[in-house]
């Protein structure tokens, strides 16, 4: 996919004036947040589960090399094949080579962030192999040639009217507003594709080192199709997907569906341990696992920032994020969006291209509270902001000399109580000209003008809190 992260500000402006996107974001994020809340409040041991999940992930990431080796050995022992890809190009090439060796001309794909990250679809197409997205949302945006906008609901930005037009054009069905019918049309078309495909490509939710088990979680059944119908199953995973023990799944199986969609269990979960056994009636003859680094191992160097790799892609942090809720997924310009995008993308793409993302946060911490693996977002965002500043001491990420001067003055004032009191008294006097009904609506000069351009500023109270407090103490 085309990366537009370096045009973040422009993307945001476009998203904010897109009325239908705003509507879709409002509905989707509100709904997901609500159902998640319901599911979580019904779980008395929720916090204990999160704590365990974090502990397992910390352990797993801290032992990644040995665990990956163990996992790979298990897969091989089960009769599967393991491929190692240091970067995106190698990963794509591995899949292409596999397809060529087996004479595969079309492959069915089930939602995989990793495939998106490495640009697998484009690479396959260039190699003359047709990739077909099979998750309904992914299929819709593939037909429309658009990138996904949400981890869980990739096509939330499209209305049924738009989808109806799209299907009428691409699938030749009569235009209809009926969602049932639209879904049925996709079902019919994709059935054919599943049947004709020589290869099924999926992501991986969890990879168990102890047993070589690959876990896949879904609602539609397209992952089961992709892993069961074609003769070859290719699973693509980032190095961070590995967890130590089979028993650890007890924790994640209860956390993931609830966090993602508020379900107690997703409609389908598959624990795949090797290709079809000789005595089994069906399933793929070959299982290939592609383990992709693509910049992740470099993230391990910083013990704080590496926590971004704990992510299990539930999407909960997106839905609760006040920034994501306004700007949506496309604005982030790459595969990962929302709070998790703001901490992963700068580390994977580099600060030159994605240095602005960590600043797109109010640091409210809603993401931290929602995250099933307890990633401490505010802490990581601040660490990345520091990095961004160190990285570009001169450019300072677009901060003007005026802003820096204002910040220096602010810091100078705040560092002494006397100066603070003086400044507050001064501000109280000066604000009078601008206050109406307790709000300052417009200040014509910098830096306040920057603020009041978009929003009101609450006026300072006529008497400072300290004065009120001292007075009340005297009264007693």
């Amino acid at each position: 996919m085309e990366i537009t992260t370096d045009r973040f500000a422009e993307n945001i402006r476009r998203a904010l004036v897109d009325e239908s996107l705003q509507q879709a974001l409002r509905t989707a994020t509100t709904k997901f947040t609500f159902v998640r809340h319901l599911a979580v409040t019904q779980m008395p041991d929720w916090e204990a589960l999160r704590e365990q999940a974090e502990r397992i992930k910390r352990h797993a990431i801290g032992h990644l090399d040995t665990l990956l080796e163990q996992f790979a050995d298990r897969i091989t022992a089960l009769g599967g094949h393991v491929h190692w890809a240091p970067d995106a190009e190698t990963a794509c090439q591995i899949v292409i080579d596999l397809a060529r060796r087996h004479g595969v001309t079309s492959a069915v794909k089930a939602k995989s962030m990793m495939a998106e990250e490495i640009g697998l679809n484009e690479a396959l197409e260039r190699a003359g192999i047709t990739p077909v997205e099979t998750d309904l949302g992914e299929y819709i945006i593939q037909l429309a040639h658009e990138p996904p906008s949400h981890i869980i609901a990739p096509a939330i930005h499209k209305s049924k009217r738009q989808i109806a037009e799209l299907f009428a054009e691409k699938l030749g069905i009569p235009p209809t507003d009926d969602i049932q019918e639209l879904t049925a049309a996709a079902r019919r078309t994709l059935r054919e594709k599943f049947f004709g495909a020589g290869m099924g490509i999926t992501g991986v939710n969890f990879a168990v080192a102890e047993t070589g088990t690959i876990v896949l979680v879904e609602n539609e059944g397209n992952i089961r199709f992709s892993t069961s119908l074609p003769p070859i199953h290719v699973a693509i995973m980032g190095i961070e997907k590995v967890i130590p023990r089979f028993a650890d799944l007890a924790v994640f199986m209860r956390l993931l569906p609830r966090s993602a969609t508020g379900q107690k269990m997703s409609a389908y979960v598959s624990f795949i341990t090797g290709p079809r056994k000789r005595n089994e009636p069906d399933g793929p003859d070959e299982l290939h696992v592609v383990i992709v680094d693509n910049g992740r191992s470099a993230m391990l160097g910083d013990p704080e920032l590496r926590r971004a790799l704990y992510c299990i892609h539930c999407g909960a942090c997106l839905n609760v994020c006040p920034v994501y809720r306004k700007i949506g997924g496309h604005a982030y310009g790459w595969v990962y969006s929302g709070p998790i995008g703001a901490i992963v993308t700068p580390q994977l793409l580099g600060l030159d291209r994605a240095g602005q993302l960590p600043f797109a946060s109010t640091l409210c911490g809603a993401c931290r509270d929602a995250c099933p693996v307890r990633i401490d977002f505010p802490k990581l965002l601040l660490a990345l902001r520091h990095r961004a500043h160190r990285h570009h001491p001169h450019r300072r990420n677009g901060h003007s000399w005026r802003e820096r001067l204002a910040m220096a003055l602010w810091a100078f004032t705040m560092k002494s109580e006397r100066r603070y009191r003086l400044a507050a008294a001064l501000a109280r006097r000066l604000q009078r000209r601008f206050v109406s009904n307790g709000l300052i609506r417009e200040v014509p000069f910098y830096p306040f003008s920057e603020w009041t351009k978009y929003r009101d500023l609450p006026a300072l109270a006529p008497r400072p809190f300290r004065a009120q407090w001292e007075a009340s103490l005297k009264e007693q």
Partner: protein
Amino acid sequence: MVDERKRAILTSIGENLRIQRTGSESDREGPGAATMPVSSRDADQEARVQKFAEELTAVGARVFLARTREGAHHYVKEVIDHHRARRVALSAAPVLAELEIEALIRAAHGDIIRLPRTPSFDELKEYKRRLMEADLGITGAACGLAESGTLVLLTSETEGRLASLLPPVHLAVLNASYILPGVAEFIAETRSSLRSSDIIFITGPSRTADIELTLTVGVHGPKELHVVVLAMNSE
């Protein structure tokens, strides 16, 4: 070359992790062992069956609690008749043989699509083609999970991956005594299930909310899920 790539990745991981080691040792030695809280076990089996049925019904499946063999037969026959199922995929699960489901299908003049045994490439292809046209898939289930209303299917000689997936209607027969409290218990207790190349958890019919977040069933997998729970061994 493959080994080179492997070494490159593992070395990079190892080196980067070591940078951190000087700072704190905790990540390297962390316990990591998952001691999971297991939901209470003292709930008796009857309550567990109730919970299972409740949860599974809540996600859109139909659950029938069969107290007698005739009851089970009657329900299965109704499903066959209702869908005018002419082509029925039938797994080789022992519980289905015991119930003599095959005779039921024959009585309704249905064609039976059987699981292939160690099929060749072409036989497997032929099986898939026939499955695509099936009206109904009948399988067993290794166990049920009460907490979430989940069926667990284990692939084996007698149970495949596709009979529960391709036909528009899936009917599963489950023994009530195999209903466990939840997924944690299954994972903790059923290590032997790893003999299966695929452990399939099914919780309701196939569903999507990808168009305007409107719930729609039967997007890829079955539109209908029926579960017959056999609870007749009380006497």
